[in-house]
Structure formats: structure tokens, C-alpha cells
């Protein structure tokens, strides 16, 4: 019942004792200063995160899995893990990227890429407020962005980004989900001349920032344009909102343009830049035909909910805009020491830059940035792009906030919460006054943090979650490799209070939290079989069959509690490729069936009710091979099985199939 192991529980007990004794002393010494709230919150932390059996959590926490390439779906405040939702990595647990239908989702210009590194989540918004429609995620390694439906919790679309390497500052989103963005972490040589010395970095290497439009109805993504930039490293970004809607802000480091030992060589300058992009201006230039189409090869993969199949299309060109030629569209704002986080507050007036190596946190004012642009208050240019004077853009600095500021999220009361990696803490401060209000330790080395709705115009508040980089001694040890870790804090009072540690899968790089009420009512329970348009669907056992097409055997297999049709198949020859097209005939919630075939060189597939999914199997020997249902479906699940007979090439065994047909031994095919 108590979600703590003994040691921390003892620790907490001791802490409570200590607090009580301190409080007691204070009461004795100074009865005017009771330490009530702290004790109260510490005492009922367990009650605050306890979600009784059968009850629902208040928030969904949609968390990137970092190097597992997936998204984790958690409940808050309980921290319970509901699902690992596969996006960029193959997932043998349900066949994502293994089934014939889903393989095209992982296609790229490089071919089939079975893994990636998913860093950031962006939830769709309307008027700056979560609308519960889609979650977007970025692939860091082979640059891509993905769109996930929050109705089915499945990946619906993956778009590769040309002219990009290390898609890190992505997929942050504009106020009405007009665009998500993608900035290059690595600048590289582009265009026709790419075989160049690495030492020619300054001359030949360039970066890009892509603006990807989102169709209002379907959510379909398209690269609207790419901005060509100097060869920097782009790190993070956030869209403007309210008054700053129409602008986007990107942090960049390595303005030194180093190409080796960046640890040292990209940390030379006192200030790097935040790049401010006026994307409404970019739209004007595009409308005036000032964009240039360039050749580029990239994959666009979409999943059709009716056919339950993905299609991969290779695109061949992309629109670019060059801000060194097209003025009044891009500006640089100096920001101290390798800025990382670049976060806009709910009002849209303030932009918080967090220099990883800085001893302060600068806060910029959108109004002042606009004034500085109007007054041409520039300190110079970089590659033809104006650099605004630091002081002219600055609202103020948070002094001595902590060590290693990374990211900032906001509540609805004008407060900011900044994570500090080096000093392992969250610091709460007031955006207007820049005063530090509170600080709490994290365990250990926090990266991103999340306030529900924290990056939107309407934060839901209540909690802040720390996504940590180091776990160390927080849980029972499991050898050298440990679970990853997150922490939940209550921010409803003046002081932040640690409520809960919860383990996560993959690296919990970043997450957004959204009220369950915006998602739960729309959650799909099954797919209507009447609507299934998969070319290999069998809508009922009458349509179950086996067909030969050359050396391909297509098995139209139906699954229902608890048998397959057909479950006896003969006439397959060694050298044939067998495609099991499984249609789940069930029309009820939570009745998936699975399929596994002995010796299959891929994985199982899970088939949701009303869906068709295909497992390809190439038999490697003559004999009779079993297949069975992998998802426990009924009391007779263990009976849900079948046999497929593989004969020698050129054998006379006729193709035949059946279910429930009992033949005399003598009449079976010889």
C-alpha cells in the first residue's frame, strides 16, 4: 500500500521527526512562526498521489522515451505507466515496424530505420490551449517528426526532414497548431557540394530550420519551408503566443562554429544567440514567390485508419527561404553561454533563455524586441542577419538562480519553474519581478520538467514533474543498468513539495501533461469491421481463404475467441513466402488477438478488434509448423492454435485449408 521501500520511508519518517522537532523548537523559541504547511504536505504526500483501484488519474502524462524511440503514457498523480506507444522504434510486443502494414512507417531516404531517439513532445493546441487531438514527437538521429492520434494512441504519420542532421529543436508548436518546427542540431554541408573537408566548416556548413504545416482537419504534415541559417547548432525552441504569435524563438549554440572538441571550443564566447523568426513574414515571402525549391530526398509516411496500412512516399523537393537575402524575417538576440531552453511564458510577452553554463537566467521582452527592431538597435550582423543589442531586448535577469539552468515551464499565476542540471533542483521564480521564490532538490540531475499545460497559454498547473538523467540509489538496484526516473511535486501552494518518485521506461526526456477529460471521452475502443478497407481483410469466416500467387501464399486468417480460420493449411512449398493476413473479428473493447509462428524471423503481431495486420513468414524447412494466439483472449486461449504444412519444392501436395474439418488418416493429402 505504501509506495515507498523501507529505507526512504524510514528517511521520510526521520525527516518528519526532524521537522516536528525543529517546529517544536521554533514554537518554543518563537510561537509566532509555526511551520504548519510543510509538515501537513509531507504528512499526506501518499494520499495526494493515491488513486484508488478502479479510479482514474486526473492527467495523462505523455512522455518521450528518449533513446527507446517511443512515447510512454502515464497517469498523474499516480505515476502509473499505461502504455508504451511505439513511434520511431520497432516494437516486437505488438508488431509495430514488423507487420507488413506498419513497416513503411519506418522507411526513410536511407531505407528502413528501425530505431530513433525521441526527445520532445508537443501536444496540439487551439488558441494556445490543449485541444487533445494529437501528440507530436521528434526523431533526433535520422531527422523526422511524428504525429500520434490521441484517439487511438497510434502513430499516424512520420515525415523525414531533408537538409537536417540531429533534429533536436523540434517539434515545438504554434498557437493554433499551424506549424511544428525542426531545427538542425548539426550543421552540415548541403546541396551539390557535400564532399568537403570538415575543416571547411565555416565556409561550407549550414543549418536549417523547417516549418512543417499541420492540416487543420486531418493533421497531415508538410514541410512548408526551410530557413537556411549559418552553421550553428540549434538546440531548443518555442513559439510565440498572444502578442508574439507569428514569431518563433530558437536557441543556438556553437556560434564559434567549432567542428571538434565542442565541449571546449563551442564554449568560448560569452554569448551565443536566440534566433527570432517572424514566420508570418516568411509566409509573405512565400506568397510573393521568393522561396526557392531545391532538390531533396525524404520520406513521408502515413497510416490509413480504414485500411490499417501505412504508405511511404519519397518526396523530391523542398521550399527554402534565405534570410541573408530576405530581410526583416530573422534576428539574433545575444544570450549568455550556450543557451539551451528558450521558453515563452503563457502571456507570450516573455522569452526565457537558459545558458547551460550561465550563472543567471536572462528574460527577454517581446515588446522590447519589437522596439529594438523598429529602432534598428543592432550591435551588428552575423551572416547578413541583424543582431539585436542584448540590453535592448532584455526584460531582466534572474540573479544567482542555481547552476546549469536548462528549461522553464510556467503556472497560471505568473510563476516560472526552471530546472537546474548541475545543482539538481527546480527553482520557482516570478516572471515579472524575477525574484526567486522557492527551490527544491531533484534526484538526480534534472533535464526537462513539465507543468501540465506549462508551455501553453493556459497552464493547468497543480504539479511539476522532474525528468531526471541520473537514478543512482532511488530504487532497488538492478545491476549496472537502472530504471529511469521522474519525480512529482505539488505546486498548488507557495512552496513546492515532493510527492512521488516514479520509474519510467526509456529516458524520460520531456513530457506534456493534459487533463484526462480532454482525451478519455474520445478514446477509440475498437475499429468497426464494416469500415475495414484492408485489401486482405476477411470480413467473417466465409471470406477466410488461402491463395497462391507465384511463390507467395496469402492466408486470409480470421481470429475470434478462440480459434483461427483456417487453422489447417497444406500445400505450402519450401521457398514460398507466407503472408498471414489476420483479421480480428471481435467488436468489443479490449479483445486483441495475437499471432506468432514458429521460426518467424520477426515478431508477433497484435491485432486490435476489427483490424487486419499481416505477418510475413518464410519457412526454412520442410515439416508442420504451429502458430498460435499470443494475447490471452478467453478460457480456451490455449486452444487457439493452428498448423501449417510445408512440403518440398515441386511436391504434389495440393493447396488446401480448413477449420473444424476432421478427415480420416487415409484421406489426408499425401
Amino acid at each position: 500500500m505504501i509506495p515507498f521501500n523501507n529505507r526512504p520511508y524510514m528517511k521520510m519518517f526521520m525527516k518528519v521527526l526532524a521537522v516536528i522537532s525543529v517546529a517544536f523548537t521554533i514554537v518554543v523559541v518563537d510561537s509566532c512562526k509555526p511551520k504548519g504547511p510543510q509538515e501537513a504536505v509531507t504528512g499526506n504526500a501518499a494520499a495526494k498521489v493515491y488513486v484508488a483501484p478502479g479510479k482514474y488519474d486526473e492527467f495523462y502524462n505523455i512522455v518521450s522515451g528518449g533513446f527507446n524511440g517511443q512515447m510512454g503514457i502515464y497517469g498523474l498523480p499516480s505515476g502509473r505507466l499505461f502504455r508504451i506507444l511505439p513511434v520511431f522504434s520497432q516494437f516486437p510486443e505488438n508488431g509495430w515496424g514488423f507487420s507488413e502494414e506498419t513497416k513503411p512507417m519506418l522507411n526513410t531516404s536511407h531505407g528502413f530505420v528501425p530505431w530513433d531517439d525521441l526527445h520532445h513532445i508537443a501536444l496540439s493546441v487551439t488558441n494556445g490551449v490543449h485541444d487533445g487531438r494529437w501528440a507530436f514527437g521528434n526523431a533526433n538521429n535520422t531527422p523526422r517528426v511524428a504525429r500520434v492520434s490521441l484517439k487511438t494512441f497510434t502513430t499516424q504519420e512520420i515525415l523525414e526532414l531533408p537538409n537536417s542532421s540531429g533534429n533536436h529543436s523540434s517539434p515545438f508548436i504554434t498557437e493554433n497548431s499551424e506549424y511544428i518546427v525542426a531545427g538542425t542540431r548539426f550543421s552540415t554541408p548541403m546541396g551539390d557540394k557535400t564532399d568537403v573537408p570538415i575543416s571547411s566548416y565555416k565556409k561550407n556548413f549550414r543549418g536549417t530550420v523547417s516549418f512543417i504545416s499541420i492540416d487543420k482537419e486531418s493533421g497531415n504534415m508538410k514541410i512548408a519551408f526551410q530557413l537556411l541559417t549559418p552553421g550553428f547548432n540549434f538546440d531548443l525552441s518555442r513559439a510565440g503566443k498572444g502578442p508574439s504569435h507569428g514569431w518563433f524563438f530558437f536557441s543556438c549554440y556553437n556560434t564559434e562554429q567549432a567542428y571538434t572538441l565542442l565541449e571546449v571550443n563551442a564554449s568560448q564566447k560569452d554569448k551565443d544567440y536566440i534566433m527570432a523568426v517572424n514566420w508570418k513574414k516568411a509566409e509573405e515571402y512565400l506568397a510573393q514567390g521568393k522561396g526557392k525549391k531545391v532538390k531533396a530526398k525524404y520520406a513521408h509516411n502515413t497510416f490509413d485508419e480504414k485500411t490499417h496500412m501505412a504508405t511511404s512516399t519519397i518526396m523530391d523537393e523542398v521550399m527554402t527561404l534565405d534570410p541573408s537575402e530576405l530581410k526583416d524575417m530573422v534576428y539574433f538576440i545575444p544570450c549568455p553561454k550556450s543557451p539551451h531552453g528558450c521558453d515563452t511564458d503563457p502571456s507570450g510577452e516573455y522569452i526565457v533563455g537558459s545558458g547551460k553554463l550561465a550563472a543567471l537566467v536572462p528574460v527577454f521582452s517581446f515588446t522590447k524586441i519589437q522596439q529594438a527592431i523598429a529602432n534598428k538597435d543592432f550591435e551588428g550582423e552575423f551572416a547578413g542577419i541583424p543582431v539585436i543589442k542584448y540590453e535592448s531586448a532584455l526584460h531582466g535577469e534572474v540573479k544567482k538562480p542555481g547552476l546549469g539552468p536548462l528549461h522553464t515551464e510556467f503556472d497560471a499565476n505568473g510563476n516560472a519553474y526552471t530546472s537546474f542540471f548541475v545543482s539538481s533542483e527546480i527553482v520557482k521564480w516570478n516572471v515579472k519581478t524575477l525574484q526567486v521564490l522557492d527551490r527544491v532538490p531533484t534526484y538526480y540531475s534534472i533535464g526537462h520538467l513539465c507543468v501540465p499545460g506549462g508551455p501553453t497559454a493556459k497552464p493547468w498547473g497543480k504539479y511539476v514533474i522532474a525528468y531526471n538523467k541520473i537514478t543512482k540509489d532511488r530504487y532497488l538496484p538492478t545491476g549496472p543498468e537502472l530504471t529511469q526516473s521522474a519525480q512529482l511535486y505539488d505546486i498548488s501552494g507557495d512552496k513546492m513539495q515532493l510527492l512521488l518518485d516514479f520509474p519510467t521506461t526509456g529516458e524520460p526526456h520531456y513530457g506534456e501533461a493534459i487533463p484526462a477529460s480532454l482525451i478519455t471521452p474520445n478514446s477509440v475502443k475498437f475499429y468497426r469491421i464494416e469500415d475495414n478497407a484492408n485489401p486482405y481483410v476477411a470480413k467473417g469466416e466465409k471470406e477466410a481463404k488461402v491463395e497462391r500467387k507465384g511463390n507467395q501464399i496469402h492466408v486470409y486468417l480470421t481470429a475470434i475467441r478462440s480459434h483461427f480460420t483456417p487453422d489447417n493449411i497444406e500445400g505450402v512449398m519450401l521457398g514460398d513466402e507466407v503472408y498471414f493476413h489476420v483479421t480480428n473479428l471481435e467488436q468489443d473493447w479490449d479483445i486483441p488477438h495475437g499471432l506468432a509462428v514458429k521460426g518467424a524471423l520477426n515478431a508477433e503481431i497484435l491485432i486490435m478488434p476489427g483490424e487486419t495486420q499481416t505477418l510475413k513468414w518464410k519457412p526454412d524447412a520442410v515439416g508442420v509448423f504451429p502458430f498460435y494466439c499470443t494475447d490471452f483472449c478467453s478460457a480456451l486461449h490455449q486452444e487457439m492454435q493452428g498448423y501449417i504444412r510445408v512440403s518440398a519444392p515441386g511436391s504434389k501436395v495440393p493447396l488446401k485449408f480448413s477449420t473444424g474439418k476432421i478427415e480420416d488418416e487415409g484421406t489426408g493429402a499425401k
Partner: protein
Amino acid sequence: MKKELITAVMFGLLIGCAPEKPKNVEDLPSQPSTSAPEAVLTDPTKGIGAVKNVTLKSPLEKERVDRGLAIYEMKCQACHKLDDQRVVGPGWHGVTERRKPEWIMNMVTNTDVMLDKDTEAQKLLELCLTRMPNQNISIGDARDILEFMRHNDGQK
């Protein structure tokens, strides 16, 4: 009780989703019923669910028979044969003589509640040992299936 409510609501949705099929108004309940236990008290042989009273016509309505056959092949055939042989579930031969039309339609559309509360449905579960799945069948579709069952039983 909650489950019943949900099921009743689902019926409402399903009816709303299938406007292309002509339905006889008298066959449909005036509103989705949530007073299942009452139904048990009034006539236990009619089962539990939204279907209270079905008017059968003679001769059979051919359109319904055809639609019922199509639904049977997609959603029922995997477990029910048309003769009296039991596979996963009982064969359908003679079902319209053994059961009231209302009972059949409630079993098809309100499956989980029937299996949990109706004595006759529970006897079948004990016999077959596999819970009949909720196949998401609307009341209109259930009426079509019933007409097909009557046809299967040789009614004219």
C-alpha cells in the same frame, strides 16, 4: 448498472451511425431502456435489455433476411453453425422456436448483461464455456439477424 447504461448509450450511438438502413419504427424501443431488472419482472422469457416487444410479420421480410445473412457471415458464423451442431456457441437451428424474439435480440445486443444476469444465458455459458462476445450489433441489425434465423428455421 453502469455497464448497462454504457451499453444503452452505445445502442443509441449505433442507431445514429447506421441511417442508411430502413428500419420499422415499431420494432425499436421508444428510448434506450436502463430499467433492466423491471424487464426481468415483467417477462423473464424476453431476456434483459432494450428490446421489449417485437412484431413479427408473415411472410418474412426478404430484405431483412438478406441483411441478416450478411451480418451473420461477418460477425456470427465463426461460432454459430446453421444446423443444430454446437461449435463455440450453439447451432442456430430451431432457435426461434426455443427462444422469444425479444430474448434473441437482447442476447445479441446486450450480451454482457445477459450473460451476467439472465438465467437461460447463464446456462448456455456453463455449457459452452466461452463468453459470447459483444459483437457491437445495433438493435436494427439484431432484428435483421432474427429475420434470418426465422428463415433458417424454415418459416415463410
